[in-house]
């Protein structure tokens, strides 16, 4: 559903009241029309479905007056727009009036002034080149020595201009770029992009394609969650646990590469369906999944019984349920704090329409421990979905793999549930080419919450909190 409203303030008021009424704020983007100097702001609101009807994600759009350079900020009304409006300021030069801190986010800016003043306060700069094998981001940790009263993040270092690169691409090229927007969630990004394109074209991928998509999306989820668990074990200095979890992650990635040739499931999802069936025979696939499931479950049980490890997670980096709800925290971070809005359940797509996705268990602690518990539960349900999808795939082996999908023109939203949470793509197409593509990763929406979870935590908790978030900087700076 797309609507255009004449007045920015009226739209913001509507947004504010709808968010208060239970809709989830899912993003804000801007677009400049190619032929004239008009800027349109689009806000995304995720709506829960009622009864049998699946939910939807609404786009609320407003076009600013010609030549406008300022508009009233949304952030004072909907706090989750904080980073979104900074990006719009960076990319379009528009000033959101009343924004609490309009510093550059994805463009380089001046060094940030220290947030907290006081006796003995100093800043530990950490990054962008960090110890270990990490993506580039700079953390400025303001500390009197041990506690962390404030954390600043500078994410611009690896801004790659992905959004701009989409413009002018054909649909098959667009999928390739979507896969490289956030490489560790390649499948989810390809899915969200293709869902948008398929909506524009009005095409429906065949059921067998939906099942193959589920297989790859769930394997990606397992690999990501194992990666997070591995980093947590590494932070706690559990050498054997780290090695074991790395081994299982490698096994998952090798299974993916045996299925499709890429360790990240790239090249599988295409507009209208999938490029090929898994190269493994269904029986072999089912056997591999069964073996992996029992190995991972056993390792998870051992890890969650290692008290020296759990002591580091319990109460570390807590996000309050209230903040999770008002921000619309996505994925495991939201679920761990009692806010679950899983697209696979609320707005199902592909194979999830027929496969039973178990609802998330209720957690309220919101700490690193709850986040890890959520991940293990998701891994468990992923293996369940994999088994069902693999079994159903056996019966449908001879079906058509892709429907014709050639969108002439239009605009639509697509979404998918990545391991990090919701991935959203706002795609506009004209004459078979992308006019505009706005990808919004869960990493971008969730990373800003890192500002708020250090209450009572100390420097040595930092790697646990960062790992427990499980985000990718590539998806933030885009």
């Amino acid at each position, binding site marked *: 559903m797309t609507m255009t409203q004449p007045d920015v303030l009226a739209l913001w008021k509507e947004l504010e009241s709808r968010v208060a009424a239970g809709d989830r704020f899912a993003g804000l983007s801007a677009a400049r029309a190619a032929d004239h100097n008009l800027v349109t702001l689009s806000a995304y609101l995720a709506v829960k479905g009622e009864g049998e009807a699946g939910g939807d994600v609404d786009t609320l759009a407003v076009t600013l007056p010609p030549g406008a350079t300022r508009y009233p900020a949304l952030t004072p009304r909907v706090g989750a727009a904080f980073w979104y409006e900074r990006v719009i300021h960076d990319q379009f030069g528009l000033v959101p009036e009343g924004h609490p801190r309009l510093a550059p986010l994805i463009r380089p800016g001046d060094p940030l002034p220290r947030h907290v003043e006081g006796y003995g306060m100093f800043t530990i700069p950490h990054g962008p080149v960090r*110890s270990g*094998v990490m993506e580039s981001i700079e953390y400025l940790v303001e500390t009197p020595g041990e506690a962390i009263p404030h954390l600043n993040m500078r994410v611009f270092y*690896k*801004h790659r201009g992905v959004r701009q690169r989409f413009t002018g691409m054909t649909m098959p090229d667009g999928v390739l770029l979507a896969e490289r*927007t956030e490489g*560790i969630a390649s499948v989810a990004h390809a899915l969200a992009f293709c869902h948008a394109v398929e909506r524009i074209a009005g095409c429906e991928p065949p059921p067998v394609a939906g099942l193959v998509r589920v297989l790859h999306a769930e394997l990606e989820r397992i690999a990501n969650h194992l990666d997070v668990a591995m980093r947590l074990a590494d932070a706690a200095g559990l050498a054997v646990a780290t090695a074991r979890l790395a081994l299982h992650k490698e096994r998952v*990635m090798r299974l993916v590469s045996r299925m499709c040739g890429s360790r990240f499931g790239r090249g599988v999802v295409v507009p209208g369906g999938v490029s090929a069936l898994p190269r493994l025979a269904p029986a072999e696939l089912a056997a591999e999944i069964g073996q992996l499931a029992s190995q991972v479950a056993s390792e998870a049980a051992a890890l969650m*019984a290692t008290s*020296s490890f759990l002591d580091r997670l319990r109460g570390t980096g807590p996000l309050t349920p209230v903040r999770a709800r008002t921000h619309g925290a996505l994925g495991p971070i939201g679920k761990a704090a009692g806010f679950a809005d899983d697209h696979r359940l609320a707005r199902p797509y592909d194979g999830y329409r027929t496969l039973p996705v178990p609802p998330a268990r209720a957690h309220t602690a919101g700490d690193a421990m709850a986040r890890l518990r959520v991940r293990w539960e998701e891994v468990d349900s992923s293996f369940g979905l994999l088994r069902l999808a693999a079994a159903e795939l056996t019966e449908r082996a001879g079906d058509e793999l892709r429907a014709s999908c050639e969108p002439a023109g239009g605009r639509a939203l697509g979404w998918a549930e990545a391991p990090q949470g919701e991935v959203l793509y706002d795609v506009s197409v004209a004459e078979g080419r992308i006019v505009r593509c706005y990808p919004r990763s869960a990493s971008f929406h969730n990373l800003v919450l890192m500002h708020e979870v250090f209450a009572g935590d100390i420097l040595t908790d930092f790697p646990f909190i960062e790992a427990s978030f499980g985000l990718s900087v590539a998806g933030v700076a885009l």
Partner: protein
Amino acid sequence: MSIWVLRGLRDGVVTTRWPARPDPYADAWRGPARPLEQPARPLEQGERLTGITDLCPTGAITVTDGTVRVDQGRCILCGRCVAERPGVFAWSGGATGPAALTREQLVIPELPETDATIQAARAELANRTRALRRSVHVRHVDAGSDGSEEWEIQALLGPVYDLHRLGVFITASPRHADVLLVTGAGARGMTGPLRTTYDGMPDPKVVIATGTDAVSGGLLAGGESVTDGVGGTVPVDIWLAGSPPSPFGILNALLIAVGYLTPDGRKRR
């Protein structure tokens, strides 16, 4: 804690023996696309050229005087050329293939004039890395990757690839580093930090452009936020294609860097 002692023994040795022994997973790996030396069937000149360069989303395919060339440093392994023109293109096999000492060497088939430059580059690198053989420290810098290259480098530290068995270690400080692994398309925000890291490393040092993005910018090439690879920021010694390269590919590049292997896969000591 004792449960972990037993668990550590559970699967026996899972570490690959490569490069001392071949590894089936590495051998079965699908590398970047390459043009077939002998097309599967004789092609008409016109048919062969029509639209063939437009197939590639990154412009890796060129045709000069009827010779089809693939620049593997641009190939993002999407497989479109192999799928659409199986008579002209095929996958290259093996995880350890696409590492080269000069940027031009990634163009397949090789341009005639590159042979001498490769010999010179090889001699120069061997000379420089003579001191590095037995203990090597590696610093990684992400210059705008999509995040997948970091996973593959991280995998080298796991039990399956186990970098440490070869005397190679990841180090936090550039001051201790001999090899710089650079990933990513060369985000402009990282140009300064990358250069500072390189300058902070002691001589002799070796730079590996890790992945197609680092070699050429990949799909992001031509964008205003990237420098189309990292070659313009730091002097690259080893160009490693792949989107992302496999862990075996990165391992291979590291072993070439320290003079353990030569780029054609021969063991040097």
